[in-house]
């Protein structure tokens, strides 16, 4: 059974002359144990896709289902609870709470989710991301890469069913990018997660189970990333 489903989803912005079709009749499904890469040039509709998948905005037409539940039928509060318990966001701009230390970023998750994650599991996430010694630091004391890793750790810490990541490796070097993707891959397969990564970074494709591309609002699966497709995709990473 699909965990996330898009059925004929379109999203329009603006009206009249300024009308713009960001997503054009998209059909998409993601299941558990999958790491999916979504690639596309800037303005192609990747972030719109991601935010609709996370229930942050509604499609103009079509339906989005999470665990067979149509998001559009849920109230704002129910959508919020769904996000809290089911979805984890990793955003390009890190979006850490500036007045919380790294440890407190996780504590906030505990507070709002009323969860208690074992210290062992917590430390293993931090160690894999190389941020185990940053607990007392505030976001303004971290480098871009460190912030990104803390944001990733925070999303993983909440233990959501599926993770939506927008350029999660944008601030990381090749080595760290591979580690993060390997961690996401491991999570998807060992912890039964669905992970959707929107990126320009084609170095990540090795770890992906499926690769989709969005061009001008249309989404298609890139089967077997052969040379020609890669060449096409490489265009985005430049």
């Amino acid at each position, binding site marked *: 059974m699909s965990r996330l489903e898009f059925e004929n989803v379109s999203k329009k912005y603006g009206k009249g002359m300024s009308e713009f079709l960001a997503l054009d009749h998209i059909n998409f499904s993601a299941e558990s144990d999958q790491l999916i890469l979504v690639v596309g040039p800037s303005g192609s509709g990747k972030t719109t896709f991601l935010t609709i998948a996370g229930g942050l905005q509604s499609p103009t037409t079509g339906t989005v289902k999470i665990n067979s539940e149509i998001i559009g039928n849920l109230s704002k509060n129910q959508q*919020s609870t769904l*996000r809290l318990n089911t979805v984890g966001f990793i955003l390009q701009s890190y979006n850490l709470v500036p007045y919380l230390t790294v440890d407190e970023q996780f504590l906030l998750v505990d507070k709002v989710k009323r969860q208690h994650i074992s210290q062992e599991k917590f430390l293993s996430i931090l160690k894999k991301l190389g941020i185990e010694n940053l607990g007392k630091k505030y976001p303004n004391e971290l480098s871009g890469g460190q912030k990104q890793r803390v944001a990733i750790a925070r999303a993983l810490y909440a233990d959501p069913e599926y993770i939506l990541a927008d350029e999660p490796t944008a601030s990381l070097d090749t080595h760290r990018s591979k580690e993060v993707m390997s961690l996401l891959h491991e999570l998807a397969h060992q912890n039964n997660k669905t992970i959707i990564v929107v990126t320009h970074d084609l170095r990540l494709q090795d770890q992906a189970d499926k690769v989709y591309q969005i061009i001008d609002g249309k989404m298609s699966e890139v089967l077997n990333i052969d040379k020609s497709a890669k060449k096409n995709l490489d265009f985005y990473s430049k």
Partner: protein
Amino acid sequence: MFLALREIKFEKIRYSLIITLILFISYLVFVLNGLATGLSDLNKSAITQWHASTILLDKDAEGRLSQSFLERSDQQKINGQGTPLSQYSALVKNNQTGKTNAQILAIEAKGFIYKNLKISSGMNFKKDNTAVVSEQLKENGFKIGDKINIANNDIQLQIVGFTPKASFNVAPVIYTSFKSMAKINQAPVNGIVFNKTLKGNPQFKHSKLYTITSFISKLPGYQAQQLTFKFMIGFLYIIVFIVISIFLYILTIQKLPNFGVMKAQGISTRYLILNTLTQTFIVAVIGVSLAMMLTVITAYVLPSEVPIAINIKQVLTTSFGILIMSLLGALLPIRQIIKVDPFEMIGG
């Protein structure tokens, strides 16, 4: 509470500024309230100490004791109920002190005012030409045994006791007998004070019965003075509301991206609103508490000539009012939190 405390700790300067503002506004409210009460006491503390309910005055006196001269016919209608009062405003001095304003009030020894008169030192007056005076005159150098010289009068009154601060119409009170007053001012009966409901429903031809509250409100300048203070204090409440509103609004606008991200993570709007209200409450409680301390210190440090009266009940009521205004001030930013769209804030 979690986010509220951590943000205050992180943004120390920002929140110190808000606390300082609340502190000074609250301090101003406390001091103005203290002054209003102090000045009010200067006008009426003697009256309050009578524990009276009504007063009979001349119909044409417009509620003013000094302008009232009760007709004998009306006095007879009350059949000995209440206690008559005779008032004389005078400049008084002893041999050592300069002249000071005082209100000489003649009361009967059998009346309830005399019987209820609290004596803080010395004793109540019994003999002719003796008096019990307000403790305020102590500060002017008067002491027990002193003879009070009354300006434009040959009579001297000897102080036999002091009563806790009792003033009438901004002057300390000197209580004496009608017999002594007769030598000063012929002792007309200016009014009759009652502490019980008047029996027999007498109809007065030339007099009118006032409640004590109404009598106090008709003291010269009293209402204008109190209204001015109330106006200033009312405005300060509005200022607290506006200041908190503006500060929190600006802070909230700056934090909208954070709120958006937290909403995207599934943190409920209710949690964020509670956080803002808690933050406002903490900041207001700290500001008001510091203002309370500063007010108490001020009351001790100010010279006794400054008529400031701080009482706990009033300070607590005022503090509660300021806290409510602060929380109301948080409503505008709360609207922003409700409206914030996580999609817009995460850069979609």
